[in-house]
């Protein structure tokens, strides 16, 4: 069984492959949905994920013109979220270029495949900086070297360099203009920035091409040897890899940016098909 010919790679799917080839096979090749529990305290885990999603929605609403006061007034039921919001307000958008695109998806191609990146926010200036902003609601900041090596950092910067020109009326975005900011709103808006360069882009391109080609060539997708990677994997029981991970060990930022191509809410009008 092979990957579908029109499959689009994302930082999420590449991250899955880097974590465990078996997980990649189950999720993207066999497309096996597997509704097992991911974490030991499923309701708290879910509540925390929903809180993160709600924060991202708030930012999007704000960037599309809903007044901050109206949004703040809706947060009386969630003190934590209100705190994140206040940190976003005080530091989230400072020093960013003026042309802003929220929740935008860009696509490029590599090794015969599509590669997608869905951004929380792109802030651009003609002839100036091109900043990728990614909001994080986790309460732990990984080390710079861990963040630099994350698929998200690799894919997001590369895709913007390759596919962002049309956002500036055809003006190519040189890697040196690109910066990726992780903004930790739970930690008073702490920001970690990663610049980009032509050399880094070539390195990233080689890494991503090799991964994609390896996946396309692969006949076997072995289970990872590192059991710690299985703690929050929903296929854990399929592979007989122990119990669910503990909530306090979860890195929620890893779950926040799992994008699906064309992730659509259920169209409520589809329901009417029942009439047939």
């Amino acid at each position, binding site marked *: 069984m092979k990957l579908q010919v029109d499959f689009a790679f994302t930082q999420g799917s590449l991250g899955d492959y880097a974590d465990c080839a078996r997980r990649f096979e189950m999720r993207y090749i066999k497309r096996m949905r597997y509704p097992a529990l991911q974490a030991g305290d499923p309701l708290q885990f879910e509540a925390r994920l929903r809180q993160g999603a709600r924060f991202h929605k708030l930012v999007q609403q704000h960037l599309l013109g809903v007044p901050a006061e109206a949004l703040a007034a809706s947060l009386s039921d969630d003190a934590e979220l209100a705190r994140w919001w206040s940190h976003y307000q005080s530091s989230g958008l400072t020093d960013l270029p003026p042309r802003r695109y929220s929740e935008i998806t*860009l696509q490029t191609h590599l090794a015969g495949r*599509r590669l997608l990146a869905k951004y929380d926010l792109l802030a651009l200036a003609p002839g100036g900086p091109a900043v990728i902003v990614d909001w994080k609601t986790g309460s732990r900041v990984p080390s710079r070297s861990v963040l630099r090596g994350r698929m998200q950092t690799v894919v997001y910067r590369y895709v913007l360099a390759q596919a962002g020109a*049309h956002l500036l009326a055809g003006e190519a975005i040189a890697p040196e203009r690109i910066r990726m900011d992780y903004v930790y709103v739970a930690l008073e808006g702490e920001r970690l920035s990663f610049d980009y360069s032509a050399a880094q882009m070539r390195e990233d391109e080689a890494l991503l091409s090799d991964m994609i080609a390896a996946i396309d060539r692969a006949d076997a997708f072995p289970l990872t040897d590192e059991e710690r990677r299985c703690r929050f994997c929903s296929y854990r*029981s399929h592979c007989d890899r122990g119990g669910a991970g503990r909530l306090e060990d979860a890195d929620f930022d890893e779950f926040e940016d799992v994008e699906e191509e064309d992730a659509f809410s259920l169209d409520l*009008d589809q*329901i009417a098909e*029942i009439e*047939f």
Partner: protein
Amino acid sequence: MKGRPKLSEGRAISLSAAQDEVVGEPVRRRIWLEGMAGSGKTSVGVRRVLRLIEGGVPAESILIMVPQRSLAQPYIRALRGWTEHRGGQVSVHTIGSLSLQMVETFWFLIAEAAGFQHPRQLPNFIGLELVQYFMARVIEPLVDEREYFNSVRIDRQRLYSQIIDNMNKAAMVGFPISEIGARLKAALAGGVEQAHIFDDAQTCALAFRRYCLSHNLLDFSLQLEVFRDQVWPTAQAQDYLRGRYKHVIADNVEEDNPVTHRFLRELLESSLSALIIFDRDAGFRRFLGADPAEARRLQDQCDSCVTFNKSFVMSENVASLGGHLAAQLGAPAAHEIDGDPRPALKAEAHRYHPQMVDWVTREVQRLVNEDDVPPAEIVILAPFLSDALRFGLAEGLAGRGIPLRSHRPSRALRDEPAARTLLTLARIAHPHWDMPPTNFDVVCALMTAIQDLDLVRAKLLTEMLYRKGRLSPFAEIRSAAMQERITYDLGERYDRLAAWLNRYIDGAPVDAIDIFFRRLYGGLLARAGFGFHADVDAGNTAQNLVDSARNFRWSLDFMSRYDEKLDLGSDYVKMVDRGVIANFYLRDWIADAETGVLIAPAYTFLLNNRAVDYQFWLNIGSEGWARRLYQPLTHPYVLSRGWEAGAVWTDEDERELNRGTLRRLMLALTRRCRKAIYLGHSELSESGYEGRGLLLETLQSLLRRLAREGQDV
């Protein structure tokens, strides 16, 4: 390199000169394109999108609007297949998905003006399952206490679904829900009792709407109304939508509703280009507010109009058959009628229904094995697809080694064996619900849950070990011979299941129902030796059940801010038991590998908008081919925009409607068929009655006429 993508589907198709001309029109142009199904309109739409992007139009400035998601598949496939593209992404929307996104985004701007009682709290969008659930909560007391609808013999779920249908029509057509009763009464009320029914329907609709407004609930009708009247007029939504979508491709506009048409008309005012595609002789989603006449008004905003008349699909014989059938049903004779329909029609009459099913499966096998027809080029259609018919066809085809796929949107979640199993085990695990499953359900659940457990052994286990709502240990079977008969291996797996459930019953606290399903699935049923292990279909069904139960929990958790706490688990199981229909999950449809013979209701096939080589039409004696469902509380024409106030719907109107419906259906099906149509007829229907519907009558008249004219079939 292995696994390299193929050339984009959108480019692989070669276009005619007429198609090329439309694709190559200057970018800044609004084009109206109409024609019959199969004349290559959507291919033009697909290629036009690609051309716009290649010409420098930012992909994210393109909006593709379709009446339902399945109709967007050619665009989605082409865009996904275009691996060389660098840039943004095209948006594909239905009015449902667009309005949901917009209402959610701009909620805090408009909630108060829209009349919601808690404008500073989040909205709760509810799908059909939950609409029916809340509808029951609001309306059941009225129905019971005030004896509403007492002269209509119809089950409650269908009654609610027609009230919902009325509200959706009001929103889609654009009239206040307070006018539903008056419109229906003026056109349809034959007497005092009938008038009362429409009054009752009106009262219930208003009661449900009040409930939604006071609880921040948005069903589809309210969501659309709020989008239409509150969100779309705001400066922010206008800035966003007009600023973003400069290029509009709207396909199958004849299947869309007046509110969508109005939105498109207004959006076109600020768009730089448009391609509006209209399918002639269609408008099948009439019950969903489809309004071809309103759609036509979009033509006024276009710079040029193009018509395609040539089919790229039908053979001359099939075209002739479609033309003859349509003419028989009163359509003006078209040039399609010229050919000889005889080679396109294969028929065999049978006395009994199973004989017909057997004939169908034999003919399919012959086509696949002897004529090398790919199974995906065959569809088997019926007006309705009952469980028995689906089962008979599936068994027959599987027995002959023919791959098949089946899509029946109205299939309830409870009818899927994996879902039934989870629900049955949930009942056992929650004795405080006081809803123990029947022995029959337990037998079925054990068979599905434990790999390799057959019916006989499942029955033995249930008879001996299912007592007082609990599963006792295997060791309680005293007879060693009986244990051996069941086998120790199966007994050990049974024990693991029983122990898991008993531990859950004896432990605390009780899980939320979706969490229970997930725990049971991952903790046991999906493990080696159990029935869901490595089973993709079971995983999909389980995920659908989990999603449905989780949405239910989320909505009711949300509601607990306003109302009393409810027992979510038992309420959910009761709701599924009542046959509340599963939401239509598109991923099921997409996930269908297009490799097998498709078995589907006729309209479902049509709205998938693809052509095949061979079609089998079954149960041609059924009234269902022409007659609309019995829906005493609603009416697709009376509640349409074109209905004249004060006009009365007559029996003659109904007959003419049936003939028109069948005429359009015949044209639509034949236009999606390349080579031949097989007619499956049995004198006695599935339920043992003789069917003499309009399709059978029309076919017989046609055959007699052809015989008289010397074209004996």
